[in-house]
Every structure is written in structure tokens, then in C-alpha cells.
């Protein structure tokens, strides 16, 4: 249970970063791991709560107290087993997860939470180094064929689970490489891509067939899939970006983040990209204060932007949350990412009014300040602050305002699955018939079902969906949920 009095004796100590000046020169990961002994000490801070709130804070419900304890006692291999029992890809979440578990950590009530995320990564990294992570091929094949469409974290997790249950899984990916947003949405400096390749190798050995460059619903028709497979899982993500329909939007130099970020990842991977969008020497404005915006900042800075400005429509959140009213939930508070520290300016409660340009190319951006007031329905409404308009130079504008729903054209339309009010593929997550869409033997998981979310949620849904598919195919399932 960690050390009973560990939390009273040991301070939180977390991984550090390489200095900004060094890390912005390259695209590799810059988080410095802590020695095992330090990680063990950090594990000792875990209080082994009667109710481990971290476990519900964590979308895959990692059994965090157990592996904290095992790390503290030096049983790394067992810790890895426990970690893998709930999470197929801890090396992904250990790097890119915002760690809602730490927000929910009981120590976070009035102290610093346990460094759960770092411990998670330490465990799995050690597992790879030690060669403990090996394929887990099923003892028996079921003879059932499953198609998983989309190779993001949901599709990967779903495929791995189904393969381990003995089904023949084919994973379809429209891009040239497996991984979805993991591959092309998240910059290498956050997560290097060999992690994905390593998992692919494992999954191949477990029996998953990867088919890249196949855009189901476009290059491969849905009815062929339905004919060839006993079950189909839609895990295509939520890729329809939110647009900013203001005057000047048509100017060149204004791009969605997902036009910008993948190109750099391809370059890092060794591909040649013709006409790459580059921030080099430009005044970059990133619109949207979330993680994607942050990734755009970090990438722009590495490319050598002249300046990077980040706008957020919502007001600046408080520096500290009101813990008595927020814990154990994910609180609203000012979050400063490593990219923000690399030289971006941030401005809050700013609405973009128009883009101005020369020669069809954007050169500046005019925005105003807004305030948020309660409307008569009790909701918050945005109001422009009179006379607050201002203009800043902008020769590269990156739109990172989130995604509205999955792309409907293609597989969604082709299959004709029912959608929910928000335009996501409709399926429930609990009870009978969960994860099943309105079309027989078609299931949906991940962002495609729930809308834009975290990698860890995608893994959760992939796993849970796999269990439902297995139960659908076999009558019952022993896959863990």
C-alpha cells in the first residue's frame, strides 16, 4: 500500500524537461525520466485509499494504488502486469494524457497528488527495455472475422483485445501509417512514433492484420466490409474541425491545425512533404487554447516562428481551482503546457472578428475582447466589449478550436448508422447492446461515438467495445471491461 506515512514524509517530485533553448531545436521528446529509486519513493506517497478516486478519475480505471505499491516495493514486472490489465498502451497515456487521475488523487485535496502519470510511464518504459512486453497470442482462434475501421487509440485497443480473444482482426486505416491522431496529431516532441511501431509489431504477432491506405466508405465500400466480416467496429475518430467563419477566412495562410501538424510529423518520419506549411519566420496566431493549440505552438516554435500568439475565446481561468467544490473532478484552471513555456503569448476572452490580407494571403487579424455574462436561461453568453477591437500581425493562422463530430461523408453515410444530436455515431456505453450502432453487427467506439476526447478515453472505449463485440460473436465474453 505504498508506505503508510509516505505522503507525510516525501514531497512530490516529478520528471523535468530539457531546457527550452535545447529542446526547441529538435523534435524529440524532452521529458527527463527519474531514476527508479525516485519513482519508488513517489509510489510510496500513495495512500492506498479505501476509495481510490484516481481509479475513477482515470478513464481506463487503472488500478493505480496497486502499481504504485508494487513500484514502491520494487516489483516492476508485476506492476507492469497490473498496468497492462487495464490499459493496452500505457506508453501513450504516460506521455500524452492530461492525467485526470492526478486531479482525482486524494492527496490533491490538500497536497500535491502522487506522480501517477510519471510512474505509469516509468513502468511501461522499463517493461520495453527489459523485454517483458511480448505478444500475447490467443490460445485458440475463434474463426470470427472482425473489421476495425480507424487505427487511432480506440481502434488499436479494440483490435488488440479482439485479437487476444482469438478473433481474426483486420484494422483499416485511411492514412499511410497506423496510429490516427497518435501518429499525425501529436507532435514527436510529445510522443515519438516508434512507440506506435513497437506496439504494431506486437499486435501483428498477436494476429492483427493492418491495412493502411484503405479509406473504408470511400475506397472500400461498406457493403463489402459487411459481407466479409462477422462484425465491424467504427473507430474513425471525430475529425470534422470547427471552423471560424469570419471575413477573410478564405485567405491563404489560414489553416486547420490538422493540416499543419501531420506534415511536420511526416517530415520527422523522413517523408518529403511538398509545400509544407511552415511557421518559419512568420507571425503565427494560434486560435484555440486547448491541447491541439498547444501542439501548434510547440511545432511553430521549433520551425522558427517570429512570434506566436495564442487566443482563447473563454476568459482566463483561475490559477488555482476551488478544490472543495471541484475535487475529484477535472477542474477548470489555468493550464500552462510545455509549449506555452517555449515562447508563446496567450490572450484570453478574445474573439476573432476578421482576417485581413494582401494578395490573397493573410497578414493580420482583428479581434475584440469579450465578456461572458449569464443570459436569461442561466447559460453563459458572450458579449463584445465595446471599443476593445485590436489588430495584430498574422501571416500564419492556425485554427485549433476542436472538432465538431466525425466526418459524415464516407463510412458513416455509407453504412447509414444512426447519429446522435451532436452528429456522433449513436451507441450507448452501458447495459445491454452497448457500443452497438443502429446497424446490425456494426459497433462504434472512441471519438467517433463520443466526440472529441482524450487518448485514454479512446482506449477505454476500444477495450469496452471489444468486449461487446466478443460477447456478440461468442454469446458471452471474458474480456475485461
Amino acid at each position, binding site marked *: 500500500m505504498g508506505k*503508510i*506515512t509516505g*505522503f*507525510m514524509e516525501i514531497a512530490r517530485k516529478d520528471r523535468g524537461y530539457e531546457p527550452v533553448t535545447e529542446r526547441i531545436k529538435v523534435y524529440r521528446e524532452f521529458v527527463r525520466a527519474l531514476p527508479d529509486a525516485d519513482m519508488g519513493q513517489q509510489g510510496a506517497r500513495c*495512500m*492506498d*485509499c*479505501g*476509495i*481510490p*478516486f484516481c*481509479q*475513477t*478519475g482515470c478513464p481506463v*480505471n487503472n*488500478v493505480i*494504488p*496497486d502499481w504504485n505499491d508494487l513500484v514502491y516495493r520494487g*516489483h516492476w514486472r508485476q506492476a507492469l*502486469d497490473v498496468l497492462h*490489465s487495464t490499459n493496452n498502451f500505457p506508453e501513450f497515456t504516460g506521455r500524452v494524457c492530461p492525467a485526470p487521475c492526478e486531479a*482525482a488523487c*486524494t*492527496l490533491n*485535496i*490538500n*497536497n500535491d497528488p502522487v506522480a501517477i502519470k510519471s510512474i505509469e510511464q516509468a513502468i511501461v518504459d522499463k517493461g520495453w527495455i527489459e523485454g517483458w512486453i511480448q505478444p*500475447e497470442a490467443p*490460445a*485458440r482462434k475463434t474463426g470470427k472475422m472482425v473489421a476495425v475501421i480507424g487505427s487511432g487509440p480506440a481502434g488499436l485497443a479494440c483490435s488488440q483485445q479482439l485479437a*487476444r*480473444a482469438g478473433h481474426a482482426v483486420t484494422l483499416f486505416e485511411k492514412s499511410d501509417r497506423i496510429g490516427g491522431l497518435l501518429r499525425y496529431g501529436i507532435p514527436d516532441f510529445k510522443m515519438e512514433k516508434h512507440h506506435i511501431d513497437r506496439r504494431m509489431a506486437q499486435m501483428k504477432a498477436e494476429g492483427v492484420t493492418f491495412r493502411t491506405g484503405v479509406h473504408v466508405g470511400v475506397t472500400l465500400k461498406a457493403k463489402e466490409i459487411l459481407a466479409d466480416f462477422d462484425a465491424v467496429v467504427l473507430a474513425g475518430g471525430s475529425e470534422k474541425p470547427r471552423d471560424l467563419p469570419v471575413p477573410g477566412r478564405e485567405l491563404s495562410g489560414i489553416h486547420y491545425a490538422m493540416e499543419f501538424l501531420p506534415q511536420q510529423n511526416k517530415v520527422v518520419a523522413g517523408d518529403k512533404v511538398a509545400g509544407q506549411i511552415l511557421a518559419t519566420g512568420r507571425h503565427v496566431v494560434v486560435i484555440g487554447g486547448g491541447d491541439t493549440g498547444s501542439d501548434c505552438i510547440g511545432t511553430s516554435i521549433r520551425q522558427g516562428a517570429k512570434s506566436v500568439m495564442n487566443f482563447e475565446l473563454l476568459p482566463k481561468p483561475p490559477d488555482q481551482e476551488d478544490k*472543495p*467544490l471541484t*475535487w*475529484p*473532478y477535472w477542474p477548470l484552471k489555468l493550464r500552462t503546457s510545455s509549449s506555452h513555456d517555449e515562447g508563446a503569448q496567450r490572450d484570453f476572452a478574445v474573439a476573432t472578428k476578421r482576417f485581413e490580407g494582401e494578395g490573397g494571403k493573410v497578414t493580420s487579424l482583428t479581434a475584440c475582447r469579450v465578456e461572458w455574462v449569464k443570459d436569461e436561461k442561466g447559460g453563459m453568453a458572450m458579449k463584445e466589449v465595446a471599443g476593445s477591437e485590436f489588430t495584430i500581425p498574422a501571416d500564419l493562422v492556425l485554427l485549433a478550436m476542436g472538432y465538431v463530430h466525425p466526418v459524415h461523408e464516407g463510412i458513416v453515410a455509407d453504412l447509414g448508422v444512426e447519429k446522435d444530436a451532436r452528429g456522433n455515431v449513436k451507441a450507448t456505453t452501458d*447495459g445491454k447492446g452497448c457500443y452497438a450502432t443502429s446497424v446490425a453487427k456494426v459497433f462504434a467506439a472512441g471519438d467517433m461515438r463520443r466526440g472529441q476526447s482524450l487518448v485514454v478515453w479512446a482506449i477505454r472505449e476500444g477495450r469496452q467495445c471489444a468486449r461487446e463485440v466478443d460477447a456478440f460473436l461468442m454469446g458471452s465474453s*471474458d*474480456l*475485461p*471491461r
Partner: protein
Amino acid sequence: MEIPAGLPRAQGLYDPRRERDACGVGFVAHIKGKKSHDIVSNGLTILNNLTHRGATGADPLHGDGAGILVQIPDAFFREEMAKQGVKLPKAGAYGVGMVFLPQNPAARSACVREIERAIANEGQVLLGWREVPVDPTSLGHTAKGTMPVIRQVFVGAGRDQLDRDAFERKLYIIRKASGHAIRALGLATAGQFYVPSFSHRTIVYKGMLLAHQVGEFFTDLRDKRFVSALALAHQRFSTNTFPTWDLAHPFRFIAHNGEINTLQGNLNWIRSRQATIHSKLLGPDLDKIWPLIYEGQSDSASFDNALELLVMGGYPIAHAMMLMIPEAWAGNPLMDAKRRAFYEYHAALMEPWDGPAAVAFTDGKFIGATLDRNGLRPARYFITEDDLIVMSSEMGVLDIPQSKIVKKWRLQPGKMLLVDIEHGHIVSDDELKRDLAAERPYQDWLDRTQLRLEDLPSPGAVPTPDTDKLLDRQQAFGYTQEDLKMLLTPMAVAGEEPVGSMGDDTPVAVLSNRSKPLYTYFRQLFAQVTNPPIDPIREQLVMSLVSFIGPRPNLLSPDSTEPVMRLEVAQPILTFEDMEKLRRASESTSGHFVSEILSMCYPSEWGVEGMEPALARLCADAEDAVRKGVNIIILTDRDTSAELVPIPALLATAAVHHHLVRAGLRTRSGLVVETGSAREVHHFACLAGFGAEAIHPNLAFATLLDIKDGLPQMVDDKELVKRYIKAIGKGLLKVMSKMGISTYQSYCGAQIFEAVGLNTKFVEKYFTGTPSAIEGIGLAQVAEEAVRLHRQAYSDAPLYRDRLDPGGDYAYRIRGEAHVWTPDAIAKLQHSTRSGSFATYKEYAKLINEQSERLMTLRGLFEIRCAPTPVPLEEVESAKEIVKRFATGAMSLGSISHEAHSTLAIAMNRLGGKSNTGEGGEDPIRYVPLPNGDSMRSAIKQVAAGRFGVTTEYLVNADDLQIKMAQGAKPGEGGQLPGHKVSRYIAKVRHTVPGVGLISPPPHHDIYSIEDLAQLIHDLKNVNPAARVSVKLVSEIGVGTVAAGVAKAKADHVTISGFDGGTGASPLSSIKHAGSPWEIGLAETQQTLVLNKLRSRICVQTDGQMKTGRDVVIGALLGADEFGFATAPLVVEGCIMMRKCHLNTCPVGVATQDPELIKKFAGKPEHVINYFFFVAEEVREWMAKMGFRRFEDMVGRSDMLDMRRGVEHWKAKGLDFSRLFYRPPVDETVAIRWTERQDHCLDKALDHHLVEKARPALDSKRPVQFESAIFNRNRTVGAMLSGEVARRYGHAGLPEDTVHVKFKGTAGQTFGGWLAHGVTFELEGDANDYVGKGLCGGRIVVYPSKDCPIVPEENIIVGNTVMYGAITGEAYFRGVAGERFAVRNSGATAVVEGVGDHGCEYMTGGTVVVLGKAGRNFAAGMSGGIAYVLDEEGDFSQRCNLAMVELEPIPEEDRIAADAGANVELETHGKVAIDHVAGDDGATIKALVQRHLLFTGSERARRILENWATYLPRFVKVMPLEYRRALAEMAQEQARRGGTAKGAEVRAND
């Protein structure tokens, strides 16, 4: 079953079988056998003077029963019968049957006919019938209504009956045979038929009478010709108010005060002997006695039946009593070898009838009494110069001039008092037992027949644990990760059962979605009120794990003419080697023991349906085996595999056990269970309780060896097994002791469980006799659970491939067992109460209340009926009124921080609700309101077994005084606050020493029975007449009956707690497996109280995981007036269910004493207030829906409840709540809620007189001195006076000796209770139990009457449990005190001239000087204070319990001389101040002996002082180790501060 006339039939949750009673008992006899009418009148007088030990029901004229047993008055009957022309043969040649006959004439005549027929059949002569004259005028209405026709039948001895004992046997057979015949008639009114006695020596007059009514009702008893040399009298206190004539004592041989805890087992064992028993004396007549004991009889009646069989079978009555209630012999090094051999030999004949018992017995030739092994009932006696002996529950019952008394003594634990009337002398315990032990060569017989398993030859190769497929097998038996981590690991490392905290919020097994071990459907029963639990650690000397495997000798063949080999094990958990020995028993015992292994497994392909036939076959195989001569049956499931599925071992064990009982074969064979399923204490307890004589947990051992390398410390294999066995053994002792059972032998088969969630058909078939209140699953579902586990275990599912199920029973796990407290529920509750958002609260309430997907609680399955037209919300009683019914739970300062504790108090005081101190006192500063008007005073003051901080001042500052009988998380257990948690502040509040550990004993040492409880209620009421006295009980089967008894004991308030209540520290098995949901206990309580017409007198509260308004509404509908909440308000204060309270590491400052952590406490009274208002608002919403405007209208309206429809859950669908929702049909005049006050009869208190006399002292501190006579019926003298002192002057009280009262006579119980500072009680005479209870600064002096010729130091002066929980003050007793002298003394000083067993038990402070012999187990659990014992014979160390203390010599005289004069004030009347830090032992003793002489005039004191140099070295100092350490620390601190030894701050003793 046979229901005595007058008792209602079983209905709802009421079952007449649960009725309990306790009583006052006494006898008077002429030692030389001189018969006189005076003896009879004296018997009646004793009864009268024991009236306060009885009780009345709703009708004050209606008692619980009383009676008297005498010798047959030959002359009287001769003359009476002559009147109707019957000439009786000579005395002894005729017998008299006292017969209760039905009022219905036809039925009556049928009964008469059967008796006459039996007389003829047995070859005896019917002489005639006599109508017993009665005068029913003084009887209550109900007693009259059920009064039988009472007649006596006279039977002459037949020609062949020359031997009187043979004639007595014939009378016995006549009674048994006619009784069976009358039963067989099946008459509707047969319940009225009963034969109180049928003997040629004795006769019993008894009935549904009050004590004084016995003589008034039976006019015979007033007739001068009615003579006897002995009279045995009994006054009953039963838990019910129903008129039953036959349940009155005495029975034919005994009158009993106490309770047999092991009754169910004793009955089973008796029954199981039927086929094997035979008797030379009774011959073929033996067949006529069966059934020996009718089902449903009281424990005393059953005991009497069994004793009767032994006596008829040829045992002298004293011998038979020793067989049934043996003294503790197994662990007694002081017992002589012959006597031990006697007991050991007899142990195999019959298991003890275990429980608190003072049994007075007579067969007309001998009269005597015996006490249970632990001395849990009072029994005092005296002898006069003219050969009268009087034994009674208390002294003072007969007004005999003190000058005539030559001896006053008491019955000691396990000892017997016997008077041989025929030969005219008293047989001392020693003499009696020495003679009996020497009568036969028991040791030789033992040597020839007794084998110890450990002595059998080692089998050489012992099979090693099978580690193949260990994981699969663990899974097949439902092992979880928690079993390994939370249970097995701590046991293996520490040899102790693990401890946890907070309550159990998981669903009961029948509601769980998971496959639960069958063990979890059985809940451990525990003692509350009607009998005491035992402390198995501190009173280990009475506990025994000895078990016999194999056949039992013929009970009625005491002379070993047919030797039967017996196999004994020291404890019942068998190792691999032990098992191998058993398997090969035949070779190593020359065929005496033949074991056969029967598999509990069956082919898995047979599936769920296969289990029933497999069980049937197993039972049949077992029977065959026994019939062919096998005498050790080994049930095993070690062959479990993918192909073989195990029947749950508990099911198989119980099934085989009951099958053999029914076949009458059970005592012919031992039953040993080898199972993979048993791993935690509860599992072993269940197997034992249902018949396993020994258990081999093969898989638990294999698992331990497997996880060895991962343990926190290196332990070798042998040691590992040893520690685990030790932990299980200790746990078993604890489980047994919580029911007050001290031997494994009597626990075995005693079925001390109730089933929750099993259906009656299943239970009756396999667990016959086990109660089950709410139905539930049957064999099919039990099989389903087993088969599911098995399937999962042997499947290759990834889920189970490489790991065990997470469990989640002890800590929340997403993939484990469900919990009511989820992260969301806690977050929503905290957010709502902090922000004041009712909307968020409703989200919380919804999470708790709505259980359609997740079944959690019984009430979750209830549907609340709504009115067709709801009431507008604004017309419903306001929340402000409703919250007054709310209280916070009893959480001690110590278990939670001062901050958390006082926040609750402030909140409840603002609300008008009540907070509870919990055990451990209260800082007087909290009685003073805060500047802002808030108050930290807890309205409810708890009085728990430890009595910590229970001062007079504490008691008078209460609105409610709550006697904690049990606690939901660990009913029947005590507690322990380790020394490191006893901070300066806690020590101050508890009146103890910082750093010294504090032990709360499992029982209140002044409550061993229901009439004791009545006494404590009376005590508390005297101290603070304005406070309500409350009794806290825990839900279990029979709690309703106990609650009825509590109401009759005059409690104003009763709390029914659920098993799921929280705790600061408790063994995990207790948190999980003891007690039942409050829904069941509350419903039973309501039904029983209403049925008894007692409900109106007592306020009913319920608590246990009470969380929402819906919970409150359900509680009200089931019958609660008030509600307790503990966990939820703690959560509001910040608790996040760490379940680490016992580790002192609560990270939110709630349950910790760590100053750094306390700083993190962030709770606010406002939050708590918000919570209670939210709950009340939710209650209002429900009330509106149901159509109730006033809360009180809702109380007891269980007709508004229904089982939720459409429950499809595979297990829960078998539940049936109809018995829970039952409403006894009573007319409208019978209240179903609390409407009136109890009459405590305080107006009779002697204290009114004392208070009046002491007025000048009370008003203006003017000293007063006066005298008063005192009698045993003057109970609790001094408490009211002291309450008045404390109310005016607080704990400090009055100056020394301001009120000085001199009493003369025999004081009743609790003389000088809570006597306040400044009050001196001087008593010339003697006193009963509980003298100086809670002594709070006063002085008590007791010495014998000046005219009494006894030698004081050789006679008893005060009773048992003297100075229990004394805080401070001093006492001097010239004479010997009873058992448990100065138990739990916190700081008082006492001098006494001898003490009984368990002296200074649990003492934490103070000084005790014993100028004479101290009994066994002195200083058990003594953590503080010092005792000085004058050890003249040099054998004290053998009787002292050295677990926590060391014995030190007293320093030399010269040192004392040097220090002389240091305590000059001792010479005066001034208060004695003893400084343990300075350690002037010699001076201290001398000063105290001087004072003893000064106050009591003790000759012994004078002699000691006169020969000081000789006596001083003979004193032994009893020094607790922890206390010594704490004193040393104080001395150091003192030195640091430069203070002196006299520094007030470091005085250990205040």
C-alpha cells in the same frame, strides 16, 4: 415446536424461541436437614427481597414468573389427603406430581387420563388427585386469563419398587411417557399442560407470578404444617410480557440465573446421541424419554431436562452438574492433576453447556449451587450458628441478626457449594471435587483411551502442498487479490487477524452480482444484554480450543466399563502432517480409529443440477461409513479439478453433520473437513459452528507458501503455517467469545449464526435450526455460484488467465465488489453541502437511493407506496422540526479529532439535534457555551464498557445517556486505544495517563444479564434523572426480544444499529460478518415491542449507513422515531473513506490525532447543517408523496412498504420481505410509536432523604453528618446525591468529608455509585455488587457489623465488580471483595483484605492495596496504576496475569525510613494523594494501611502495622510495563522542567 401457553405464535419476525430471561435466585436450607415451616417462609421472603431483580410488563400486577421448590411436606399431604379418604403410604413410598392442566374440561380430562394410564403402565399405583387451593385475587388480568387448573397427583410405589432411586426413575418415566402421549393427542389447549415436578422428594410451586404473589397465590405455602428443610426460590425477569406459567423457575432440579449460549448445539448433540446411548439403570425405559427436550423450550428448561437424564442415569447431582458446567481446566496450571483428569475424562462425554450461569440445584437430598467458569453471575451465601445456610444473588435477602452469622462467602467462578442435607454437612468445593476425582482412576482411563493427535507417530513423508494449477484452484474457491493482500499476508506476518476501519458498504451476499462464498450468507451472532461476551485475550484462562475428533463415549456409562478411545487435538486447525496422521490413523492406533475420505466434489458436467443428488449421495455415504465402523469422516475437496466441481464445503459439512444427527449417529464419528475454501476466520467459524471438529485449509496453506517470497519479511515454511494457525485460532476465540462461549467443543455445532439471504427450505434441510428472516436463494443458486466460479477458474478467459479477481470488498475497486459510497456519491455530497446546493444533494441522493441497476441494500429493494393524492409540500411538517429527530453517531474523541468531533457537536446543537460523545469522556470546557452562542457540548453522553471519562459531572451534563451494548462494526467485542494514540489531551479527557494504552473490555462488567442492565439504567437515572437513558443494540436475530427486555428494564430509548456501522478500528471479519442489516433488526424490534404493548414507553432510534431522506423514511415506516448518522456527516466534514482511521494517517484531519494532519481538517458546522436540512427536505418530499403531514404519523407504517416489483436479479429475486413488513394485529389503543415516559420509580430512592439532609452542604458547603439504616432494596445509594453535587460544583465537588453519612445494614447494589468528592459513606454491615461504581472523588468505608462474630478478613464484605470505572476517590473494605475488584479503575485508591478472580482487571490508574489473598488472573489487561498485594504464601505470581505487568519487590525498610514523613497528610483525614512518579512504595503502603486501620478499625491492618518489618517484604508490587515507561517519561520531563516530584502536572494520580 411446543409453544408454552401464553406466548404468541411466531409471526412476522417475532419468534417465541428467541425469548430470554434472567433472574434473581436463592435458597435457604437447614444443613442438618431439620424441616420447618420457617424454611418455607424464609424462601418466600428471599423472593420478596429479590423483587427488584424481576420485572413487570405493561401491567404492573403481571410479573414474569416466580416459584419455589421444597421437599415434600409429608405430614401436610398426609392430613390433606386423609380428608378425601386417601391414606398415603409412608414418606418416600409415594410421589407427588404437580400438574398444570388445561382449563378446558374435556382437554383436562384427557390429560388426567393419560397420566393415570402411564402410572398403570409403569406398574405404580394411583393414590388420588388433589385440587391445589389457589387465591388468584392479587393476580394481574393476563396471568388470570392463562391460569391453568393446578392439581397434584399422588402415586404410590408399586410392589417391585423397593429402591427409592428406582421409584424416582419410575416417576420420571411416568412423567415423560404421559407428556409424550398428551402431546400426541394434538389438543389445541395442550400448551397449558405442564408438569412442574413429579417426584417423591421434591415439589415445585410456581407460576406467572410476582415474587410476593407466590405465597399469596398458593395457600399451601402459608400452612404451618407445610415444612421443608430446604427452599429454592426464583424470581424471573423475561424479555417479554406474555403470560406463561411454565417458564417460571424453579424447574424440577434447578433454578438458573443466566443464559446457555450454546443451546442449539447442546440440543443437537443430545439428539445425536439417541441411537448410541444406553443405560443399565434405565434399561429399556430409556426409549420412553425421547425426545428428551422438546423443541423451543427455554435454555433453563432444556438444561433441567439434560441434568435430569444424567441424574436418572445414575450420576449424583453434583457430579452431573460438573459434567454440564465444568470449571476451566484446560489452561489452569493450578488445578491438581486428579481433578484435571476428572474434567478431561468427562470432556469427551459431553460438551459444556456454556454461558453465564448461577445454577442452584437440588434433588431433595443435596442442595447446592454452581457458577460458570467465568463467574459471571453473583451468588453470595452465609451460614448461621444454628445451621441455616442462605444462598442468594445478593446479600440482605433475609433479615437474620448479624450476631448469628458465622460465615459469609460467595460462590467463586467454576466452584460449587453443596449441602448434604441427609448427612447434615456442607461439602466444600475442594472436598467434593477431590472425592469425586479420586473416586475412579480417571487418569488411568485417560492414559488408556485418550490419544493426542500430536502424539501419534509422524507419518514420515508428508505430502507437500500441491502447487500445480494453484491459480485455477484459488479461482475455483473464489480467492481474490484482497484475500492474499489484506487477509493472508497480515496473518502470516503478524500471526494476527488484520484490522480495518469504517463500515461495510458493500451489498449483502444475496444482493451482490458476484459469486460469493456460501460463508458470507451466514452472519455471526453475538451476545448483547442477556449475556456477556468474554474477553478472549485478557480472560484467556477460561478459553479453550481443545477439540475431540471421533466417537464419544456413552453418556450414561460413567464407569468406563466400555472404554471408547478418544482423539484430542489442542486446537482444530490441522497441518498437512496432522492430516496425514488422520488418514493413517488406523495403522497407528491399532484400528481404534478408522478414517474414511469422502469427496465433496462431483463431475462438473453434471452442472448446477448435479449438486443436490451429489449432496444426497455424500450424506448416504457418510452414514454407510459410520454404520460400518468408520469413526473419523474426512470430507475433502482437494480433488477439485477442471472435471470435478466442489460442493461448498460449508454446505457439505452442515449437510453431513445434520444427516448424522438425524440418524442419531453423529457421536459415533468425528467430522473433519479438508477444504480449499476456508481462508479467513469467519470461514473456520462457520465450519466449526456447523459441525466440523477439525479443519485443514489445504489451499490457504499452499497459497501462503506460494506468496512467501513476496511477504514483507522472510518467514520459513513451518513458521508461516504456525503463524497462520495462531491467527485463525485467536480469531476463532474472538468469534466464540463474542457470543460468550469459551470452548471450541461447545461452539462446535452450536450454529451461532443467522442466515441472511437464504431460503427457509434450503436452510431447514441443510442448516436445520438456523434462523433466516428474509428468504433468498436456495440450493440452485448456491450451486450456480459454485459452478460459475469453477467454470471461470478453468476457462482460458484472459480475465482470469494470470490473475485473481480483484475482490474489492475491503477497498473500492472498479472491477470489484460494489460499494454504496462511490467516488461520485462522496463528491456530490461534499459539493452540495459546501455550496448549499439542494440540486447537487439530489444528485447525490439519487446515486444512493436508486438501485435498479446496482442492488446495494435491502431497503434499495423496497418500494414506497404513494398516496393517490399527495399532500401539498407546504402542509408537511417543517424540516426544522424533522431535524430534531437526527443525531450523529457515537464517535469517540480519539477515533476522530477534536476538530471533527466538536464541529459535529456545534452543528447538532445549532440544529436542535443531538451529537454523541462516543466512548471516552468529554472535556468539561465543552459544557461552557462559546462566546458566539455555539456549544460544543454533546447532548448524548455515551457510557461504554471502558467507562473512560464517565464522571458524575459528565453524566449530569447529558440529555441522553447511551449505554453502548454493542457496535455495528464489531458487536460483542471490546476495543483498544494503543498507548501512542493516548495524547496528553485524550488522557486528560479520559482521566488516564498519556502514553498508556487503554483497553475497553467486550462486556460491561456490570451487565451480564437483563436484570443487570435494569440496574445500570437505574444507576444512571439516579445520577441524572432528567436524562433519557438509551441502550444501543446491534441488529441480529432476536434483537427485538432483547429490545423488549430493555424496555422492561426501563430504558427510555433504544438504538438498533445495522451491522454496517462504522468503526475506528475493528477486525476485518467483524466488520464483514457480524450483525445484520438494520432493516431486519428494526422491524423485529418494532413488531416485538408492539406485540408486547411496550412500544409506547420507549423511543426507537436506528442507525447504520444512514445516508438520505429515503433511508430515514424507510426507517420511520419500519418503526423508528429517531435516526443516527455517522459516516455521512463525516463525509460532509471531509472524510473520503480512506479506511485508515486505525493507522492515524487520515489525510483530511478527521480520524487522526496527528497535529500536522489535523491542520488539514476543513469541515464546517454549516456544511453539516446543510446536510441535515437537505435530508429533512428530502424526507418532506417523500412524506408529501405518501400523504403524511406529520412525521409521527409515518412511524411504524410498514404497510406503506412493498417489495420492488420486477426484480430480475438472479439472486435477489428469491427475497421475501413480507415478514419484515408484517404489522402485529393490535387494537388502536396500542401505540406503535413512542408516546409516553417510563416510570423509573425514583420516588422510592433513599437519596431523596440524603439530599434533604445534605441540603446545607449542597447549598453552602456546610459540613453535615448523619446516620441512616440501609437494606438491600436500597439500590444506587449516593448517586442522586452525587449528581446534585456535580451539578453545583462540577468534578471538583465539595471539600473533604463535607457530607458524612453512616449507614447500618446491608446495602443494595451500586452502593456509593459515582460518589462525588466531598461525600463520605461509612457502612457498618456489608454490601452487594458494584460498590463505588464510577467513584468520583468520594470516600467509601465498609466494615462488618460490630456484633457479627465472623473474622472479617476471612469473610466477604462487598460483592463483585467493585469500583468499576472509578475515576478518583478512596475506599476501604474490611473484608474480602468478590470477583473483578477495581476493574477498569482509572485513579481511585482502595484497600481491601482479599479479592476474588480478575482483580484490578483493565486498570489504568490508581492504587490498590490487597491485604490478603488475591484470586486468579489478577492484573489482566492492567495498563496503569499500581497494586500492592500482601503475598503471605508466596504463590501470588501464579495467580497474577503477567502479560502486561511485572512483579517487583518493595524496597528496603531503611529507604522507607528515610522517606518517612513525606506523606504526613495521610495521617489526617485529608484526601490521600499518591505519587507514583516518586515511587515511595513502602511509605505509600504504610500510609494506606494506617488509613485503613483508622477508618475501618481493621485488626489485620493493626497486626501488619505492628509487625511492619515482617510484613513489608511480603508485599509484592504489581507494576504495568507501559505505566512504568510512561512514569519514566514523566520523570524525565519533570527533570527537564526542573520541577519536583510533587509537581502537580506530572502526578500520575489525580
